[in-house]
């Protein structure tokens, strides 16, 4: 697999015109621009690329932690996305679901499906990794959804981060993205399920 470019983006948000919290919110994304081996033609069996993408998922997860100056325990929200260049198809973006999502969950402390629905907290990163995908031109923006890593319904952590790589994807490229946040929205105040009240540990509530 040809990795053409690696791009990282880290934000520190101090306030959004409300009272600044004591700890600024950190969030960001790590991005790989790869050559799309299936560009320009229909290839029926594209699934093998998923295995090849696994090491890339791990590399991006570690890069993102470094860019955020964070350890796995600091990460509270996550998401993933893909932008496929014009000579590819949306399905090429879907290749990222398993290798991107599972790699990031593994790095953040996921212990595997076998532990799901166990009473108490069976590891971390229990929630599905929310995602978006699109076909786009170089410099296309994509909004990567973010949700709490242990329970998708935690309202304070429902968020999104915009990602854009100037110049990518070219027609024969795919942009694969992992995103993480170290906290809730900067001035979250809309109630709902709180992170400290997660009790089902089923990835949702």
């Amino acid at each position, binding site marked *: 697999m*040809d*990795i*053409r*470019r*690696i*791009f*990282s*983006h*880290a*934000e*520190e*948000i*101090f*306030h*959004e*015109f409300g009272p600044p919290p004591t700890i600024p919110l950190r969030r960001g994304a790590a991005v790989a621009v790869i*050559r799309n081996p299936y560009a320009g033609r229909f290839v029926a069996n594209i699934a093998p690329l998923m295995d090849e993408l696994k090491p890339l998922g791990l590399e991006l997860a570690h890069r993102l932690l470094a*860019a955020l100056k964070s350890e796995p325990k600091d990460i509270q929200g996550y998401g993933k996305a893909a932008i496929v260049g014009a000579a590819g198809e949306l399905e090429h973006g879907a290749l990222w679901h398993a290798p991107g999502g599972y790699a990031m969950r593994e790095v953040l402390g996921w212990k595997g499906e076998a532990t799901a629905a166990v009473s108490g907290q069976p590891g971390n990163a229990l929630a599905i990794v929310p995602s978006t995908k699109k076909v786009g031109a170089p*410099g296309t*923006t994509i909004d990567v959804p973010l949700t709490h890593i242990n329970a998708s319904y935690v309202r304070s952590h429902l968020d999104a981060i*915009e990602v*854009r*790589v*100037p*110049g990518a994807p070219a027609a024969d490229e795919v942009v694969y993205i992992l995103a993480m946040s170290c906290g809730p929205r900067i001035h979250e105040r809309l109630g709902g399920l709180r992170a400290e009240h997660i009790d089902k540990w089923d990835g949702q509530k």
Partner: protein
Amino acid sequence: MLAAIRKLVVQVDEIRIEMGRVVEPATRRALAMAVIANPFAGRYSDDLEPLSAIGEELGQLLGAKCVAALGIQPEQAQSYGKAAIVGEGGELEHAAAILHPRLGATLRREVSSGAALVPSSKKMGGLGTAIDVPLGHKDAAFVRSHFDAIEARISDAPRANEIVVAIAVTDSGRPLARVGGLQAQEIIGKDGLR
């Protein structure tokens, strides 16, 4: 801090393959941006010195963020550039006041030297406005392999009363640079040009 900073963004762009060819070592460009309140939004002021003081502060802060993001020693930095986007409540001269009088001196300290002009761009803009930050070799402006630019953009800034200030630092020139001119290894690095 003199600057009222709402948000900081740091990006690193690493190019490993260009036109199918491996770039060895990979080129790396860092971009650090601050979203700050514009103290002069909505009013005319003859004296813009407070913005120059903010520029001095941001030259240090954003320069250091770039060098840290690249994971290099200051002397390993090769090129630099700066830019500002002023929200619609301000005026273009506010960008000039931040960028030109004092920002360069503190930025140069963060990259250990810098005989050359820090190339710059500026514009008025709204949320998500992109600006191309010019890049030039820090010790000799004529080094052709290091003429470049990197795009800076923050999706939710600048608001009308804000300014986005961007600094870019690299540890490399363009990938596959091959159009001749003055080479980095040929420079004297004293007069800022060659």
